[in-house]
């Protein structure tokens, strides 16, 4: 997989390192010559010094054969244009823009560019942890219409000690994985649930609260 990352700072450095360790062919585009020199010393990835919203620079970074472009500069307008040029001029199949201003997530999506906001992500992580510490919403899937939730079963969980087939869950709910002592199990009806298990639950929003109540005994 060839990924072009435009931006700078620590986030870019660690992403570059992470992608390189996964064996991706990562290319970094950064405007600052000094930072470029440092990045090429520190990382085993190609570094292109220049403006990612300049077509020539994207071409030099190999945009024609890139599978994805990630634009994480501190300027939202640059991130938008980088992604649009990559998609429109080079046909890059997947582009993602960082929206520094959280309001721009919606704006970018309306302009046809996938976007994320670290403010949103961190904010919702904190909210979820504050709400119930044993429940972690892992990720919204299908534009937020599917919840994937990780639940640590407390000692008093009503489902602890029951076999899965004896637990009556609402429609559109699935216990996808049970993690017991660090080992993941994809459970069938005969598997039991125990206190201390971590359950990965897939729900639709309308049944999410009801399913959580059955599993943890607490209202959500």
């Amino acid at each position: 997989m060839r990924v072009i990352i435009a931006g700078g700072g620590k986030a870019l450095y660690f992403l570059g390192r992470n992608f390189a360790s996964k064996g991706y062919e990562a290319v970094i585009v950064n405007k600052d010559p000094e930072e470029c020199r440092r990045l090429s010393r520190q990382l085993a990835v190609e570094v292109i010094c220049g403006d990612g919203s300049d077509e020539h620079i994207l071409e030099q970074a190999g945009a024609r054969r890139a599978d994805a472009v990630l634009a994480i500069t501190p300027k939202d307008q640059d991130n938008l244009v980088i992604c649009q040029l990559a998609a429109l001029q080079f046909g890059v199949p997947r582009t993602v823009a960082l929206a520094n201003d959280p309001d721009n997530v919606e704006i970018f999506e309306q302009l046809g560019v996938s976007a994320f906001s670290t403010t949103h992500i961190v904010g919702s992580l904190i909210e979820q942890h504050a709400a119930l510490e044993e429940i972690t919403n892992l990720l919204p899937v299908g534009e937020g219409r599917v919840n994937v939730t990780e639940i640590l079963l407390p000692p008093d969980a009503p489902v602890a000690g029951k076999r899965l087939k004896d637990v009556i869950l609402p429609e559109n709910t699935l216990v996808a994985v049970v993690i017991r002592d660090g080992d993941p199990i994809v459970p069938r009806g005969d598997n039991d649930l125990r206190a201390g298990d971590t359950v990965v639950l897939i729900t639709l929003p309308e049944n999410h609260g009801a399913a959580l109540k059955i599993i943890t005994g607490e209202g959500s």
Partner: protein
Amino acid sequence: MSNDRFIVVVGCGRVGSRLANKLSAAGNSLVVIDIDESTFGDLSAEFSGFRLAGDATQVALLREAKLHEADTLIATTHDDNVNLMVAQVARNIFKTPLVMARVFDPKREQVYERLGIRTVCPTSVAASLFMEALGGETSEPRERKQ
């Protein structure tokens, strides 16, 4: 051109302020936005519109500028990407009927023409004016006389 339009001008540099002064003097309603308040000093005494200091890439500011009621938006900042983003937001989100952007990079200009953004590229304009002054209608190099 009718002179009772509501026009939002983004960027109050040399081009933006000149444009705003002329459009306001002609009787249009103007809102001028610039991130740097000191640029408003270039607006003339006859300018009767509103001045709004802030970052036009933030939708909240465009809302404050009442862009949803505007007939026209002209993005004139010195940053191509700001102009292109603001122009797209105006066109696609605020549904502003007429949207124009100044774009220095001719390559970017072509891409955004395709997205329905009307662009003015000072680089191409200046080059073709020079070409015209040189007597060549096109940019094709002419054969040299032996």
